[in-house]
């Protein structure tokens, strides 16, 4: 799109269930020139941290949402004016966006005025069919087939209405239609835009939802992410121990903000932390968690790895980590245990002919964890697996993950062994059925049989593996057999096979 008029930059939709994001950093300031697709800002959502590219070339005319603020998807974040042109601030002006900085709960509530009775309503389904101008909260999903239009009828969106909607960032479902069958006509949408519907739309949202960085989330905020989709893959669990005593979901936090006790200090929860907290709680509330553990003699893997390491490094620049070996053997084992790679969906058991493998990746400074997914790992050999893990972990740390990179996992591996822990009880990444924990490889005195069939004590590298599974679907015996087979594959690693 040629930049002839001011372009709005809005909070992007980073994944289906994501309804809000936090601005972590503006990479351009007001007045600076920017090229189309050049990174404009960094945002953090409960799924990914990422950079947002500029939708057009020009000058950053106005930044409407400051760093640290959390806003709904679709909220106008900035205005890019065409280069050279002194773009009239007309569009931006009425959107006098900057939310009243102090934002006490009351202030936010007041600002939300037009629909205070709906204060509690989670965003997406609201859409009242009545009065057009009442700026109903925008559903996060774009126009198309959202049936939030009153009676749930899908009405035709004409070409001109679609164009105006996209130009003004209006969700057509929020405009009440006067055309045939309630269709939104050009007049309807122009009236909506002129009445300020489009510009103001994000405003109440912005104030109502995020509760600003200072305050830990008013009730409706967590409701939004929680409500939409329990049947949806989400990022997953931290290493169990820290996660287990998960703080009560912020939803239950009293709206009143208590003073910090002497010696305490407050730190606002990031979007990611809120997402993790919500997910951990929900997972424990959903699945019947049980953990089984097994000890694996890694002698053979250690030996093979030693041999392959130099070769892989030299030829491919890839490190064949223990994790890659475990992952490869796990994928192979899962083929025989489809339920462990499955899911309970309603009263159906879902199994798959593929394994999308999630890997828990710790982000720098212990401030978060994300579970990027490597898709179709059943098609990867050891080298491919090692490369995929290293690549996706790097992208996670560089905040270069795309929304799809964190969705659709069917099984997860978490690897807290790097710090020497030898056991844990991870939390399952919903809606999966199980999660494998891998722990430190430790040299242990190990009883083996010598050539003559007599017991001797040898020094062997031993690794503990845990399988935490949803006991609703996976019985203990099944989990035990899975771990036995996995151990067998690792202990008798067949180089020719992988």
């Amino acid at each position, binding site marked *: 799109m040629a930049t002839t008029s001011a372009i709005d930059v809005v909070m992007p939709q980073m994944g289906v269930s994501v309804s809000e994001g936090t601005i972590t950093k503006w990479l351009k300031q007001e007045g600076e020139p920017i090229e189309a697709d050049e990174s404009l800002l960094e945002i953090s959502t409960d799924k990914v941290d990422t950079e947002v590219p500029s939708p057009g070339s020009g000058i950053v005319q106005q930044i409407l949402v400051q760093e640290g603020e959390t806003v709904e998807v679709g909220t106008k974040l900035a205005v890019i004016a065409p280069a050279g042109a002194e773009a009239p601030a007309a569009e931006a002006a009425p959107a006098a966006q900057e939310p009243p900085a102090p934002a006490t709960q009351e202030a936010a509530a007041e600002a939300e005025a037009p629909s205070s009775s709906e204060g509690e309503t989670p965003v997406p389904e609201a859409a009242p069919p009545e009065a057009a101008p009442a700026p109903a909260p925008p559903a996060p999903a774009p126009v198309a087939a959202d049936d939030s239009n009153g009676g749930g009828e899908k009405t035709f969106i*004409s*070409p*001109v*209405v*679609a*164009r105006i909607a996209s130009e003004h960032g209006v969700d057509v479902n929020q405009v009440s239609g006067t*055309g*045939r069958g309630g269709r939104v*006509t*050009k007049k309807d949408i122009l009236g909506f835009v002129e009445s300020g519907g489009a510009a103001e739309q994000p405003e109440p949202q912005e104030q109502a939802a995020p509760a600003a960085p200072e305050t830990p989330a008013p009730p409706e905020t967590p409701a939004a992410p929680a409500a939409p989709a329990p049947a949806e893959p989400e990022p997953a669990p931290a290493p169990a121990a820290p996660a287990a005593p998960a703080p009560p979901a912020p939803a239950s936090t009293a709206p009143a903000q208590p003073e910090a006790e002497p010696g305490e200090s407050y730190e606002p929860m990031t979007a990611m932390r809120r997402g993790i907290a919500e997910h951990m709680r929900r997972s424990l509330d959903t699945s019947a968690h049980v953990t089984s553990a097994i000890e694996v003699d890694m002698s053979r893997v250690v030996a093979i790895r030693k041999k392959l390491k130099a070769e892989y490094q030299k030829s491919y620049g890839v490190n064949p980590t223990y994790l890659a070996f475990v992952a490869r053997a796990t994928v192979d084992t899962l083929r025989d245990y489809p339920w462990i790679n499955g899911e309970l969906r309603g009263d159906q058991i879902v199994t798959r002919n593929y394994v999308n493998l999630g890997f828990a990746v710790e982000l720098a400074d212990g401030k978060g964890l994300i579970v990027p997914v490597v898709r179709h790992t059943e098609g990867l050999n050891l080298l491919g697996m090692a490369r995929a893990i290293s690549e996706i972990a790097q992208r996670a740390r560089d905040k270069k993950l795309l929304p799809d990179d964190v969705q659709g996992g069917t099984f997860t591996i978490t690897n807290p062994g790097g710090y020497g822990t030898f056991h844990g009880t991870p939390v399952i990444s919903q809606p999966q059925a199980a999660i494998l924990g891998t722990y430190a490889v430790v040299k242990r005195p190990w009883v083996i049989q010598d050539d003559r069939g007599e017991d001797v004590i040898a020094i062997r590298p031993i690794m503990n593996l845990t399988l935490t599974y949803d006991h609703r679907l996976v019985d203990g015996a099944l989990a035990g057999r899975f771990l036995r087979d996995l151990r067998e594959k690792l202990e008798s690693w067949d180089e020719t096979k992988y």
Partner: protein
Amino acid sequence: MTYLQAISDGLRQEMRRDKRVFVIGEDVGVYGGAFKVTLGFQEEFGPWRVIDAPLSETAIVGGCTGAAIMGMRPVAEMQFADFISCAWDHLVTVAAKQRWRAGTPVPITVRLPSGGGFSGGPFHSQNPESSFAHIPGLKVICPATPEDAKGLLATAIQDPNPCLYFEHKHLYRRLKAEVPEERYETPFGKARVHREGEDVSVITWGAMVHTADEAAQQLEGDDISVEIVDLRTLIPWDKQAVLASVSKTSKVVVLHEDTLTGGFGGEIAATIAEEAFEELDAPLKRIAAPDTPVPFSPVLEKAYIPQVEEVVAGIKEVAEY
């Protein structure tokens, strides 16, 4: 001044100022033409410039083509536009292509009394403009007002290409308006916004401009504001004006008296779909005559030619979409 007088005046002015202009047709001389457009012309300009032709459209247009090639500016009159099919070969095969074939301009004007509304039946009521709009090299002119009738005729006579000038018989004496005394040319390819409106654009030409206008007046009561674009010439046609009106209202009715299938309205509709798709807020509607010959019976003819009520209903349908 009536529409017919405006044509007559315009023609007389051209003949007075340009000696290359002559008139030829059936009964145009002594009788003054079937509709009296050239009444008194032979007295003023003499029988060599106002020629009574034999009953042969082929001969009339063929003769005009030759004269034009030799440097004259003939104005042929078909007694009824319907008869022009006899001259198809000269017009389409020779006149329209001469410029491409030999580089010679063929500045002929063929006056075509067209349209129905007076029980003239299938051979005296047609609007064959779209047949000729399809032929590269011909220009197609369809004035809707006395002022345009005069100005467009002057432009046609001076234009170096064969021009088909469709004058609507129904408007001849029914339509009266102020027309400038002096000579003037109305440019081709420039539409006229007959009526400004906000809700629905009616794209039309010729007599249907007035049908649309009556419909628009009725629709005022329903709070539907109709914009009427009078194309004035079909070849060339004013795409920009049409697209501008479409952008404004986003709802379009294309109205013509000619039959529907293959009518010029289809060309307009296609262009709007191609170039203004993102401006549309409703399906485009064509209102035209059914694909049959024009009936004699007054009752059937009324059912055939788009009437005000039909146009009102069509506009309403689009407006309410």
